[in-house]
């Protein structure tokens, strides 16, 4: 068939019109083709990226920080997610009604909220962090433009002030700043994981695009602390510091058999859950970081040194004249006695007696005993900022210094260090390494400081301290035999010994027949007129020891006849 040959169907078109339409169609084709080539070929990376951005997502898998618990699993620190409210100024468009409603939810005045929201910043800023769960639900329900909820982990310390200085705290970035939180940062911190997913239109994950990097949760930590004893210690210490109008105080409770720190509290304290009145001074763990001159609490070490060398026996009699001089320094006792046995020197805390015993040793021998007991060295608890105290080189000691060192001046110790050293007396001569972490009994090996024989003899002397005529009668615990030593040291203020500022201390152990607990108490500058270690620190010791022994269920070791609490007489005067 030939259409052209039919007259009726003959198309009568000017050739230029054909050409124009043809050209237009071709141009269209070229344009579409060119565009397709541009998008598919040249610009493909950019567009692919855009597409991926819609469908693919990189998710961070949050890892939370490990928990810290006490030895029985009671929670001391936990991270838990909370919502916080963030605003993006660029998208903010709230009606006054919405502002008023939001202000009500956030417990703010509308004016205050407006000021906060008027904050000009390029990115996002936090309006409130954290929100309470109820607030979060309400804010989410409002669905306000430019405001979003963000999920963050926040650290809580259920025991609050009671364990504040031991557990420490973390900063906003979840990094440990103080205490155990800092010491075990690497262990506690989690490592966030990552996964790449493909999402559908509704934002559901469809499949993983890359192998998942699993989040590594932070490790949990079980401390050696026993929260019940810790609370008791904290309560009694706080009461004593308030009662004696003292500047501060510390208490340490050690397990004599394992070296574990069962409790450690300080005053003043702070609440780690609310750090608005942040004062670095309050969060210092004084028992570990601060050092002081130990005063009479050092005397048992002198006694042990002379007993060990066979220079004296516990019942050797020593003259203690009140004009005893070393060089041109007069050594004084608060109460004069003409002569005392070694046991009595410890019992009544005679400076003259202690100095006389020390002078029978060479400085090197004297130093050696103190060094072996751990003075001048880090106690090794692993606590950040732990202090080693000060013990000078014996070659620089002058005789007068050696004499004063016998009753605890001229060297400095921390309370933890001193309590640790007393483990030698409690544990038949062996000192166990300290630990803030709960440990299994089989993993410990002690370090021998004294022979078992000497340690027992000195312990018997220290038991006399708590008996009639001693300086520590207020430290008795009904039903148990207690051994310990009082200390009342003048404080060094601006290079001089202050006549009226003291550090009252008591370190003791019970049951004395086979000590299980060592408790060290130091009260800094008691200001209500009572300042002897036996009367200020002693009662704190007695209360905490009685409670702890009961909690641990240790059988009483005092003979039945003595279990009736003898009237605590006020004859608690002792040596300085």
């Amino acid at each position, binding site marked *: 068939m030939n259409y052209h040959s039919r007259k009726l169907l003959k198309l009568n078109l000017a050739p230029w019109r054909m050409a124009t339409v043809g050209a237009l169609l071709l141009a269209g084709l070229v344009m579409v083709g060119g565009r397709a080539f541009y998008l598919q070929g040249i610009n493909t990376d950019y567009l692919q990226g855009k597409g991926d951005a819609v469908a693919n997502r990189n998710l961070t898998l949050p890892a939370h920080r490990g928990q810290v618990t006490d030895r029985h699993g*009671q*929670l001391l620190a*936990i991270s838990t*997610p909370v919502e916080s409210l963030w605003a993006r100024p660029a998208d903010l468009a709230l009606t006054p009604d919405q502002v008023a409603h939001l202000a009500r939810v956030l417990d703010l005045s509308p004016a205050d909220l407006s000021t906060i929201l008027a904050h000009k910043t390029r990115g996002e800023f936090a309006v409130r962090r954290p929100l309470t769960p109820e607030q979060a639900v309400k804010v989410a329900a409002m669905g306000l433009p430019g405001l979003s909820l963000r999920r963050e982990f926040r650290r809580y310390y*259920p*025991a609050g002030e*009671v364990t504040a200085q031991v557990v420490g705290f973390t900063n906003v970035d979840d990094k440990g700043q103080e205490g155990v939180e800092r010491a075990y940062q690497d262990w506690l911190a989690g490592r966030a994981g990552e996964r790449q997913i493909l999402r559908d239109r509704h934002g559901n994950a*469809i*499949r993983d695009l890359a192998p998942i990097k699993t989040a590594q949760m932070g490790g949990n930590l079980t401390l050696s602390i026993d929260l019940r004893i810790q609370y008791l210690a904290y309560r009694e210490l706080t009461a004593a510091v308030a009662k004696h109008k003292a500047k501060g105080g510390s208490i340490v409770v050690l397990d004599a058999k394992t070296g574990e720190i069962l409790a450690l509290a300080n005053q003043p304290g702070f609440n780690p859950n609310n750090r608005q009145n942040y004062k670095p001074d309050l969060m210092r763990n004084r028992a570990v970081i601060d050092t002081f001159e130990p005063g009479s609490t050092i005397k048992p070490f002198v006694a042990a040194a002379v007993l060990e060398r066979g220079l004296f026996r516990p019942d050797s009699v020593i003259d203690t004249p009140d004009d005893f001089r070393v060089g041109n320094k007069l050594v004084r006792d608060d109460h004069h006695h003409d002569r005392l046995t070694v046991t009595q020197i410890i019992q009544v805390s005679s400076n003259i007696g202690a100095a006389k015993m020390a002078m029978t040793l060479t400085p090197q021998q004297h130093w050696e005993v103190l060094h072996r007991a751990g003075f001048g060295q880090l106690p090794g608890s692993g606590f950040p900022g732990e202090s080693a105290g000060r013990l000078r080189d014996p070659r620089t000691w002058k005789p007068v210094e050696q004499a004063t060192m016998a009753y605890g001046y001229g060297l400095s110790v921390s309370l933890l260090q001193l309590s640790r050293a007393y483990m030698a007396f409690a544990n038949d001569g062996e000192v166990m390494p300290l630990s803030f972490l709960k440990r299994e009994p089989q993993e410990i090996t002690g370090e021998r400081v004294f022979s078992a024989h000497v340690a027992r003899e000195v312990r018997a002397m220290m038991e006399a301290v708590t008996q009639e005529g001693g300086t520590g009668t207020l430290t008795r615990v009904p039903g148990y035999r207690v051994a310990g030593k009082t200390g009342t040291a003048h404080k060094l203020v601006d290079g001089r010994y202050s006549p009226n500022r003291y550090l009252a201390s008591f370190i003791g152990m019970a049951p004395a027949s086979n000590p299980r607990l060592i408790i060290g108490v130091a009260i800094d500058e008691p200001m209500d007129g009572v300042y002897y270690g036996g009367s200020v620190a002693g009662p704190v010791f007695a209360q905490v020891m009685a409670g702890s022994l009961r909690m641990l269920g240790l059988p009483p070791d005092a003979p039945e006849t003595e279990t009736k*609490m003898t009237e605590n007489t006020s004859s608690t005067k002792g040596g300085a």
Partner: protein
Amino acid sequence: MSRVNVILALVLVACALAVVQAQHRARTYFVELERLKKEAHGLDEQWGQLQLEQGTWANPARIDTIARTRLGLVAPPHDRVRIETVTGAP
């Protein structure tokens, strides 16, 4: 020859449908897995919050106050306590 082709074509269609089916199932299971993971995560968080709550209720300071003031409890005096030593197996 043509019969073989027809059979192969049918097998091919069946396979293609099976792939679609499998893919669909994989996605459904994946969504389910995601949901359960989310649930596990949520439960984990709830567990943490409950632990926190428990820790707060069990705060020794709180128990001490309640025992002393509201319940009027006191620690038994020493002479009212007898410690028994258990010997041998029960």
